């Protein structure tokens, strides 16, 4: 997995490439914690290029989202599609997040 980080005020955009499985969660959480500690509160998760997400990946996103909410921030997901979208739906995660078709749309809502 690769994570590309971009800052587009007022949010940090994290684009995830490749497989988001158990092995990738540590890196994902480290990056998030780093930005949270740096004072960032608004995040957009671009999952357009994510080819696969495991339950560990889902839990990692969920745990991160909970932390952000505790600090009065928010996180939205954009460009989720295909198999990954199905996984979100089956697991019930779809109910926990706001989804937007594009990065631009997501940025308006954070």
């Amino acid at each position: 997995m690769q994570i590309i980080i971009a800052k587009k005020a007022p949010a940090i955009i994290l684009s995830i490439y490749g497989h988001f499985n158990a092995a990738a969660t540590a890196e994902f959480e480290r990056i998030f914690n780093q930005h949270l500690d740096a004072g960032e509160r608004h995040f957009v998760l671009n999952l357009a290029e994510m080819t696969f997400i495991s339950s560990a990946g889902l839990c990692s996103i969920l745990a991160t989202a909970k932390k952000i909410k505790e600090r009065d921030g928010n996180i939205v997901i954009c460009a989720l599609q295909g198999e990954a979208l199905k996984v979100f739906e089956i697991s019930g995660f779809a109910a926990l997040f706001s989804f937007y078709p594009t990065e631009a749309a997501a940025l308006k809502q954070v």
Partner: protein
Amino acid sequence: MKTAPLTFRRTSLAVKFGLMVMAGTSLVFAAAFIYNHALSRRSILRNAEINASNLAGATVGRIEAVLNGVEKIPCYMALCLEQRTWAREDLTAFISNGLAANPDIFGSTVAFEPYTFDPHSRFFAPYCYHQGTDIRQIWLGSDQYQYFNWDWYILPKELQRSVWSEPFFDEGGGNILMTTYSVPFYRLLNGQRQFQGIVTADIALDWLVNMVASVSYLKTGYAFLISQSGVFVTHPDKRLIMRQSIFDVAEGANDAHLRQVGQAMVHGDTGFVRLESPFFGKPAWLYYAPLKSPGWSLGVLFPEDELFADAQRMGRNILLIGLAGFVILFLIIVLISATVTRPIRALARTTADIARGNLDIKLPLVKSHDEVGELSFAFDNMRVALKEYIAGLTEATAARERLESELKIARTIQMSFLPKHFPPFPEQAEFDLFARLEPAKQVGGDLYDFFLLDDQHLFFSIGDVSDKGVPAALFMAVTKTLMKGIAMQGGLDPASVLEHVNLELCKENDSLMFVTVFCALLNFRTGELVYSNAGHNPPLIRRADGQPEELPLPKGIILGAIEEARYTTASLTLHADDMLVLYTDGVTEAMNPSQDLYSLERLRETVNGVSDQNPKTIVDAIFQSVTTYAAGAPQSDDITVLALHYNGTSSPIR
């Protein structure tokens, strides 16, 4: 730490260094010494030759001066005899006067050819000689002594020139060594030069013997004289004089070289040669030079060891001085080396301490900025680095051991909460159930469970905690305990069970852990299956006559995420020989070495490929397939499979 004891005793560096330097200097010294020795030998030999030649030259000169003086008398007499005819008295007076004027001459005669002086007398040879202070006269010639047949007469007559005779002992005249100089004289008769007789002068050679005997060279070197025929005229060994020749000596010693030398001497050559042993019994050098007029040869002979005695003594002294120098040099080198290597030795001792594990020891302070100082500095750096490294290693080892022990605890917790007796309900013929959980090294927190609620309901579940290690294992234990507790309190609705469990888990869930759970309730009397799901993978269902399909699941969020989560129950009916396969994502996400996932497709194929109806067979087949696929790649997550085979309602309801 184990270290080899430093028991090997070795030659110290200082001594080794000293020996090496000594070996080097010894070689140079030896080469210089040998070269110098050879050079000085040659120079000594050249000097000896010059000295001996000077000595011989001087002696020869002195002898020849005397001999030349002697030669003049008979020559003058011969000249006088040729001028006129002499009366008998005049002649004897002439001889006697000449003798009186030349004390060097012992005796003299004028010997005429037979019947020449006096036609009636066969012999005419008046001989005058010194007798004390007087001069006596006798007549030579008798039937016993026919003088004209003797060498002293015949040789000059035949050779027509003056001749020195071989030395001889004059037995009549006091037994002294003599030699005779014979000069022929002639008269002109009818225009022809006619031989008349011989004038002789006898001289005693005692002065010659003394003169030659006075010549000495070095300690025992001496001079000797040999005659034309090689007979010793003078020699310190009196037994040789007039009795033996140089050739006799050569013959006696069987020395061909000496024979050649003798020939060269007799021939009148000059030379400087080395002789083996005939005279001194040891090697000696001989310089020889001729005495031209009598055809004799003077030799100056001296032993070689005397010649080189000084050089040898000097060489010995140099050797001794050199040796003493070497000893001193060696001591100095050892001393210097010892000073240089002292810090190294101290370092070695300290290093031995370090090797024994004492890393706090202070290294000896080396102030010098040379290699030893650098070494010491590097050693100290090494010691500090080693200390830090060992400290780090100890810490890391402790941490790893702690982690490993934690993982062991986690695994123990996880495994101890799972039902492990199979078949679990042997008295229930309606279904067979088998489950297996293979924890990953780091423990993923998978769980499965099954229990009977009453005599017709089986509750079973599978789950996966979203964390690893001890927290996940504890969370798994809590989930499993809660679920069982709630289900046992009349949880005939799986959705309701999940909601209750979720509520409990959401309380105080500070660690942000979640757990996916699929749970179901089977009425094994009727085959009715009700189930609910909280974010777990859809189980597979293989109908008796069909392919494995994913179980259609109601939506339901993972447990522990939000308190308000609601779950719904779905239902279906199992028929005889239907098979349910519950699994966690450890199966589908198992990876091979190139990091490809095992995948749902492969799982389906594996399940489809097993025709056996025994759930254990299918579980084992799945594990076997996953292990083969992973091909040694490390297992990153727990792998759990639970299979349930429904046998149908053939058995009567109790």
